[in-house]
Structures are given as structure tokens and as C-alpha cells.
């Protein structure tokens, strides 16, 4: 594995430079919050921040995207065009938890039987640069409980670690290697730096004090679909989609058509298991009639169904749903409460 050093003050400039001829997604400050955005001219990417409010899944799986365009013809309609040919891109400044989310999303979208062409093309053409959390930014972080680590390189092509004066860049994949070559001649990191990094990684993991049961509660979930515990989880839930929209691993979507005059498009847009309409059938029957079933679904999908199918929990412990839930429904507490049952 190649390692390089980048002078601290040079990094934002390098990224800005990269953005001149490549599509770069990076965290930027907007009013009170940090968001991943397409880095436009004169925009300064952040290298020091907690985490972005939105999860970076948006770049591979946009909140809304046109899947195809069609034209009305004399007899019916015809497919006109399927968008594709997405540009090469760099996704800079992803926290290790969010980078790991791509590994989980790949299970769904890179399914061997049905590969999702929209997600996969963007995914393959994007180089992901993640930033290790030297000090995990929030008390709501719990990546270590979900199989992650503040220094994890899962899902990343390059991992950057803040070493004080320099960024230590670790190439994880060939894609990452190529990107670093593009950034110019960078010095290699010596063993002392690498040893120091190992030490910092241990330190960072120790700073995460929240412990959330993950696979430990799976046996309980296997047996207790009808447990009265589920009656209490959703109380207070507004049935908004904040948790699912900000979640880096939630991937449910809707497909709808829009037409105007003789043209139209088929779009896919995020949907949420928190919405009553999500499962309602034309007949009026709804398999998940109340917020109780919907909450159970959200939790079960992450902690049981996904584990059954892919042997991984569909949660990376970023804590967004905990921090931004308007009524403070806390997935950590739900897991902890289950562990006590």
C-alpha cells in the first residue's frame, strides 16, 4: 500500500485545482451547516469539519434522477433516451462511516442478477477520498459498534489522516493511486509516521464511548417480531423522512412518470419506509398500516433483514438520524433497550 504526505496547507488548493477539470464533490459550509456539494469555481472545500449534514450517497444515488425520457407518438409512446455516460468524479472528504456505507449500498445495487446501471456507473467512475476521524466529531458517533472504525478505509480509495503538519495519504485502491499521481510528486511517509498513525487510530476508537449492540441483538429480532416492545418505539414519530433521507445506507426509492405536452420522463426519487404511502396498495390494503409497523420495518431492515441477506448491519453509526430526528427517536437507545430484554 502506497503512502504519501501532503502538506496541510496545500490540500484545499490541490482539491480546488482538481475541480478545474474534474467533477469534485466536497464538503462546503452553507450558512449553519456543512453539505456535500459539487465543488464549483471559487468554492473552498472543507478539510476540518465534523460531518456533512447530508450523506454522500446522493452522488451515486441522487434524491431524484431521470431514468429515461420518452416521447408521445401517434400510437402510444416511445423511449427516447436513457441518460448515462456520467463523468469521472472525485468525492472528497468522506468520513469513514459514510465511506463504509458504499460497501453496504453495493450489496443492493451491485446485485449479480440485476446491477443498477445508474448507481454502478457513477460508483465506478468516482474516486473516494475519505478523512479519518482523528477525534470522532460527535458524541452520537457509534461506528465502532457497527463494524466500522474512525480510521477505517472500507469503501475508500484514498484515506487521509490529519498528522498535524501533514495529511497522510494512504492509497487503498488503484483508483486512489491514480488520483494521487495526478496531485503531483508527493513525498512518501516514513515508518515513524505510520506507527504514529496506528497509535492515533487506537486513540480515536477509544474516544467513541457509546456502545450500541449490533449483531448481538439479531437472535432477539429473529424471534420477536410481535413483541410488545414494538408498541413503544414509534411513539412521538412524526412520520417524516428525515432519518431515511439523511441516512447514508437507506436506499428505498419510488419510480414515477412525468409528462408535459408530448415529452416526458421517468424519474426515480428517494422514498421512505416512514411514509404510509410507501406500501399502500391500489386496493387500499396497507401491509404496514401504522407507524409502529413502519418503525419496526426500518429497524428490522437494518439490524435483521440486511444481516440475513448480506451478513452486515445496514447502519454505519454516523449518528445523523439521532442528531437530526426532530423528536429525538434514538436508534441507539432502541438497540440498547432490546439488548436489555
Amino acid at each position: 500500500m502506497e503512502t504519501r504526505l501532503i502538506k496541510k496547507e496545500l490540500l484545499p488548493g490541490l482539491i480546488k485545482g482538481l475541480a478545474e477539470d474534474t467533477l469534485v464533490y466536497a464538503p462546503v459550509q452553507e450558512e449553519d451547516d456543512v453539505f456535500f456539494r459539487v465543488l464549483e469555481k471559487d468554492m473552498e472545500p472543507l478539510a476540518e469539519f465534523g460531518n456533512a449534514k447530508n450523506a454522500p450517497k446522493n452522488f451515486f444515488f441522487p434524491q431524484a434522477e431521470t431514468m429515461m425520457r420518452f416521447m408521445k407518438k401517434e400510437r402510444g409512446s416511445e423511449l427516447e433516451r436513457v441518460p448515462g455516460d456520467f463523468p469521472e468524479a472525485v468525492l472528497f472528504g468522506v468520513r469513514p462511516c459514510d465511506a463504509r456505507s458504499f460497501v453496504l449500498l453495493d450489496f443492493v445495487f451491485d446485485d449479480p442478477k440485476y446491477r443498477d446501471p445508474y448507481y454502478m456507473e457513477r460508483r465506478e467512475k468516482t474516486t473516494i477520498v475519505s478523512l479519518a476521524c482523528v477525534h470522532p466529531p460527535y458524541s452520537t458517533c457509534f461506528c465502532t459498534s457497527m463494524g466500522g472504525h474512525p480510521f477505517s478505509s472500507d469503501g475508500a480509495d484514498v484515506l487521509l489522516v490529519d498528522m498535524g503538519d501533514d495529511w497522510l495519504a494512504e492509497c487503498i485502491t488503484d483508483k486512489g493511486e491514480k488520483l494521487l499521481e495526478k496531485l503531483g510528486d508527493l513525498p512518501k511517509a516514513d515508518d515513524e509516521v505510520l506507527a504514529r498513525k496506528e497509535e492515533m487510530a487506537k486513540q480515536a476508537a477509544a474516544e467513541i464511548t457509546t456502545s450500541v449492540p449490533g449483531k448481538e441483538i439479531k437472535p432477539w429480532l429473529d424471534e420477536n417480531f410481535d413483541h410488545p416492545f414494538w408498541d413503544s418505539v414509534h411513539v412521538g414519530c412524526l412520520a417524516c423522512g428525515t432519518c431515511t433521507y439523511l441516512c447514508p445506507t437507506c436506499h428505498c426509492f419510488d419510480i414515477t412518470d412525468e409528462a408535459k405536452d408530448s415529452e416526458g420522463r421517468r424519474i426515480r426519487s428517494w422514498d421512505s419506509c416512514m411514509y404510509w404511502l410507501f406500501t399502500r396498495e391500489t386496493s387500499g390494503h396497507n401491509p404496514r398500516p401504522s407507524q409502529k409497523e413502519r418503525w419496526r420495518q426500518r429497524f428490522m431492515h437494518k439490524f435483521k433483514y440486511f444481516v440475513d441477506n448480506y451478513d452486515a448491519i445496514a447502519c454505519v453509526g454516523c449518528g445523523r438520524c439521532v442528531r437530526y430526528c426532530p423528536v429525538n427517536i434514538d436508534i441507539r437507545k432502541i438497540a440498547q433497550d432490546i439488548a436489555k430484554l
Partner: protein
Amino acid sequence: MENIEKQLREEARKLLSEKKVDALVGYEQGTLPYQAAPCIITEPEEADRLVWNPFCSVNLAKYVHDLIFQHRESQTRTKPEDRTKKVVGVIARGCTTRSIVIHLQERQYERNEVVIVGVPCTGYIAKRKLFRALEGAEPLACAVEGDSLKVETAQGSKSILIRDILSDSCLTCRYNNPVISDINVGEPAPPMNPDGEYNDVDAFENLPTDERWAYFTKEMDKCIRCYACRNTCPSCYCKVCFVEQSQPRWVGVSVDESDTQVFQIMRIFHQAGRCVDCGSCVEVCPMGVDLRKFLKKLDKDGFDLFEHRAGESLEDPPPLGAFSTYDKEDFIFEP
């Protein structure tokens, strides 16, 4: 404040043990130090879960409506003569009681289906303002000390004047004491500053048209269509919202900017004469959209045109549900 909390718990315990209510909606301590979460209790022993502090923000009238309607729905297959009423108790500050007034005016439920435990209110903390005051530091512990909030962060502790981080809605609140109630707790709270209520709107009205449009579009651009604003709003109780209707489909479900603008225009306009300025929509919005700037305009016009203030009294119906032969019509085009 602690005293009020104690009395609240006492009243809640009494209501539940005397079976005067089937459920009681209040706030409990959240898992984060800056959160009080809505909770629903049904047993007297649970009364001690209730809290009352400046983090109690979301308008609880929404839950009253939800509980009563869920109960009604659960009885659709019960014979009419066997159906029961569910009486819901609620911890209600001024804005919450005004929302209940609106529900009652709009015949959503009967007065005897709700027991209002009125609480005087000195305002709640807008989390966005708290974070701004902390300049990005994460609050690890919060404690109210007199008129200040003492916040512990990783960088040390900080004392912030609560007045400086109160929700905008609270700062200019006209009804910080309940307008109707069955039980009252504590002494009436001193008035806030309603005189400045429309300053924001007045200033905005004086901007050039295109600047107003630019601001509107910039704010709506933040919206991610999570519908938290709609779902927390006690006045948004439609069973099927127009954004969810598909035959015909009024608004596209994607994040097309025009669709988002139309969604917000119509949701906001549905609040004409019905918005009590509780600030819940602003407080729950994960993106910080300035919804109040637009909702408050309807409030202002409602008073200006029809001398109506939403939910002020049971006798005064919502302005768009009424009319008068003498209504102003200076907007009518006469060629």
C-alpha cells in the same frame, strides 16, 4: 420551572389515576442533552417521566389529533353504539391551546375529548440558535440556571442567556399563556414582545419583487421534501395530503425546484388564518428553511383584512371559513 414540572407531574398522575384521561401527551427528557421528546403516557406511575424545560418545543396538539383519530379508526368495525371515546390529556402552552382551538373550530373532535393542562410559557430554545451560539461545539450537557443556559462542551463550559437563543416565534409571542384550559399550572407568564411581531414581514414586504423571489427560491432550494414541517404541524391534519394524491397528481414527487416551491406555497397557504406561529415547522426542519417568513405573512394579512388571529378564541372562526358582505375588495381588478 422545576416547580411547574412538579405540579405537572402531580396533575398528570391525578388525571391518569382518576381515569379522567386515557392518555396524556407531554414531554420527556430526550437522549440528547438539548432535546425534550414528545411522549405519551397512560399509567399514573409514568407521570415522573414528564419534564418541563426550555427544550420542550414541538407543538403537542398534533399528537392529540393523532391519538383521537387513531382511536376512531380502530373502531371503524365496532358497532356505533359500542364505540367509546378516548379522552386525551395534553400539556399545553399558549400555542398548543390555540391549535386545539383550531381543531375544535374545525370540528375535529369534541371539547370533552381533550383535557388541557395549561402551562405558562416563557419560550423554548431554538436548537439552531443554540448551535450557532456554541459556534459548532457539541453540547454534552445542558442545565438551566436562572435566565441562562449552562452548556458543557468538549471545549469547556459556556453560559448563554436563554433569551438570546429563544425561537423567533417565542420572542414575539402574543399568547404565551393558554387561551383555553381545564387545569392551570403555575402563575401566568409575563408577556413577550408581540409589538415586534411583524417587523420581519414588514421589512420583507419592502424589498423589490425580484429580491423577494430570490429569497423565496433560495430558502425553498434547501427543502429536501422530508415533510417534517407538514407532519409536525397541528393544522396539517389532512388524511391524504395533496402532495400524496395521485389521481390527478398535483405535485411531482421529485426534488424539482418548481415542485418544491409549489408544495411549500400550497402547504403554507393552507395555513391561512390557521397558523398559530408555534414555530414547530421551523424547529423540526432539518435544513433550516425560513418558513416563518412566509407563514407570518398570512398571519399578518389575516389580521389586517379580517381582524382575525388564529386560534385566539373558540367563537372566532377561521377567516377563510367565513365571509362578510363588507370584506375589503381593493384587490379586485376594475378596467
